[in-house]
């Protein structure tokens, strides 16, 4: 057995014989297991609820009686975003962005401009999930278990004794590191069990899961190295503990909270009220379909009449009101899309700036990786909104087209006693409108999105490993 293995074994023996260490380790293991089970159960519950409500909403939509198509446009439809499987490990922004939307004509979902998505700052608070335990609590345990690994040897004089035995400082550092890395691996085991639970589910994606395992492994290895480095550089164990706690506070707690605030201040989003006013002003500028002198809609009317070769709206073979609804929806949707894009551009800038803080905080780099691989990051939410809007537009335009094709213009205008019945079309038409089916990101998309975070973590790891070399040289002198 070489010196590295001997030192690692002794360090683990010391931990085993320390009751506080054993209790702390057992508690974290239990916490991770509990987090995995709670999170799994919670996410399963949410998934089941959403599936049930989605089915109920679809049933209510298709069960509507014969109605005027425009009534159905305003009856609208509820859709729900199904959770990705890995949300049980890292729910990401899910809890803060909302996953249900009411889709109707003339307007996009209200969540699109909601205050809750003003920025990503609201999504960074910890929940008891395996991801939170590994990102926040596990490094703290490594700090408490490892702060004295080298400092203790120096403080008690055994460092010099060890070096005199012919052990190199590099072997000492690697031995201590190996011990702490083994502890880190054990800390990660319950989370790995949760992963295996997820992997057994249909639809589990191996690629993102592999990236996550790699990322969390690199993160815990990095913290093991940081702990050993500080322990080797600081003369007393107490000082090492204080320095490491300060580092943990800054890297894991402070920066992940401050970074989104800075991003929100740097790239400010307009408030919902400002956005609503701006949209109303733009809508007003678009024109008024009910105003016979409105230049835009007058031009539209002339174009339609020319197209069908008639002089009057009443002579059109289709319902002009339906065509007007199609055109109006096209215009308003373009406007809403434009606002949504602008909003997302700002939010993406916020996210990018927050992610850039990963250069100075590995916890941010890991969160980026974890949420991206789980499909629970802002991009995952944007994907849902984009698909929801595409579905809403298609549904509303299909209903508008039904109005144009199946409801006569004269009936649409009529106000006599039987007019209401004549305006209605068969409920069978509601069956022809497809149900919303969310298309989740592919393995390739998720892996690609998580690679920048992984790259940052690996760069951190390489930097920390290189830092061991000069620290070993300093330690080798062991004047103390």
């Amino acid at each position, binding site marked *: *057995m070489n*010196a590295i293995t*001997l*030192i690692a074994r*002794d360090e683990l*023996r*010391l931990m085993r*014989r*320390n009751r506080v260490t054993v209790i702390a380790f057992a508690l974290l293991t239990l916490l991770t297991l509990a987090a995995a089970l709670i999170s799994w159960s919670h996410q399963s519950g949410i998934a089941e609820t959403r599936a049930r409500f989605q089915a109920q909403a679809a049933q209510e939509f298709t069960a509507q009686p014969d109605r005027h198509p425009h009534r159905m446009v305003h009856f609208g439809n509820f859709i729900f975003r199904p959770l990705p499987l890995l949300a049980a490990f890292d729910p990401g922004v899910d809890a803060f962005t909302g996953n249900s939307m009411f889709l109707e004509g003339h307007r996009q979902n209200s969540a699109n401009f909601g205050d809750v998505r003003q920025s990503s700052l609201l999504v960074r608070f910890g929940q008891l999930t395996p991801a939170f335990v590994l990102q926040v609590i596990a490094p703290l345990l490594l700090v408490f278990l490892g702060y004295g690994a080298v400092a203790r040897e120096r403080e*008690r*004089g*055994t460092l*010099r*004794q*060890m*070096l*005199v*035995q*012919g*052990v*190199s400082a590099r072997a000492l550092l690697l031995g201590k590191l190996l011990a702490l890395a083994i502890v880190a691996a054990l800390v990660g085991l319950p989370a790995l069990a949760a992963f295996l639970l997820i992997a057994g589910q249909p639809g589990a994606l191996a690629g993102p899961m592999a990236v996550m395992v790699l990322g969390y492994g690199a993160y815990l290895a990095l913290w093991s190295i940081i702990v050993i480095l500080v322990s080797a550089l600081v003369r007393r164990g107490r000082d090492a503990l204080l320095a490491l706690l300060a580092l943990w506070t800054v890297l894991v707690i402070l920066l992940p909270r401050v970074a989104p605030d800075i991003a929100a201040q740097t790239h400010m989003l307009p408030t919902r009220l400002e956005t609503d006013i701006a949209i109303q002003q733009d809508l007003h500028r678009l024109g008024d379909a009910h105003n016979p002198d409105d230049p835009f809609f007058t031009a539209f009317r002339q174009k339609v009449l020319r197209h069908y070769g008639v002089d009057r709206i009443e002579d059109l073979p289709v319902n002009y009101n339906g065509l007007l609804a199609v055109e109006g929806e096209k215009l308003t949707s373009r406007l809403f899309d434009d606002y949504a894009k602008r909003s997302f551009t700002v939010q993406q800038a916020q996210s990018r700036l927050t992610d850039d803080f990963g250069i100075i905080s590995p916890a941010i780099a890991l969160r980026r990786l974890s949420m991206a691989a789980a499909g629970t990051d802002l991009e995952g939410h944007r994907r849902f909104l984009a698909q929801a809007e595409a579905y809403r537009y298609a549904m509303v335009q299909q209903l508008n087209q039904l109005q144009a094709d199946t409801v006569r213009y004269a009936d649409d205008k009529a106000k006599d006693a039987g007019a209401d019945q004549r305006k209605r079309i068969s409920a069978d038409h509601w069956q022809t409108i497809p149900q919303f089916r969310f298309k989740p990101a592919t393995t390739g998309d998720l892996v690609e999105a998580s690679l920048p975070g992984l790259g940052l973590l690996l760069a951190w790891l390489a930097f920390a490993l290189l830092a061991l070399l000069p620290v070993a040289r300093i330690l080798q*002198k*062991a*004047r103390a």
Partner: protein
Amino acid sequence: MSLTATGQRIILSDVHLSYGSQRVLRGLSLHVDAGEIYALLGGNGAGKSTTMSALLGFARPDSGTILVAGHDPIAQADKARDQIAYVPENVALYEHLTARENAAYLLALAGRHPAPQDIDGAFEATGLQTSAWDKRMGGFSKGMRQKVAIAIALLRAVPVLLLDEPSSGLDPRATADFNRLVHDVARRGAAVLMVTHDLLSAADIADRIGFLESGRIIDEAAAQGADRFDVRDLHRKFAREAVTA
């Protein structure tokens, strides 16, 4: 190197060593032969600890030659340390380990893997009570720790033993026990260099005593006859050295 080999095991020749602008060793020269016990006697700031650090390879001399069992402790640190057993003033051992585990661990780190009965034999040789062998080191007295350290030195069977203030804090009985152990080690052929400011202990154990003052040997005395040293004479020399230091 075998313990029965003869020759100079420790050589310091015209060694100069400074910490920044502070010159600590100024032309220190001494040698210790196999089987010899050399006491380096000096007051505070004479350079005793620096001499020890230089021999262990923790302090680099500005000039001069240091050889430990034929190896330069800086340029050939691994080889030199492989030949050294070192007992510091406060023996540093692992408190979470028992005496047996300490010996096995530290010896394994040095690449030695003695059989359990050999460790027991070494403990017996040092006079460490049997009841202490499987106790964790937390409650050990300084004397008991030194016995464990000497047992490890015996098991390593190295040709050089360095002792740093070995009698400090020991009662007379423990000092006598310790001196007997050191004699045993030397009798097996090891060169023993101890740095101390305890004149009586040095007189009791050493074959030669060097008086260190301001980083160099200013006088040397060798044991002669049954009385070994004239303690009064030693005291006179030491007092003069202490006054001039």
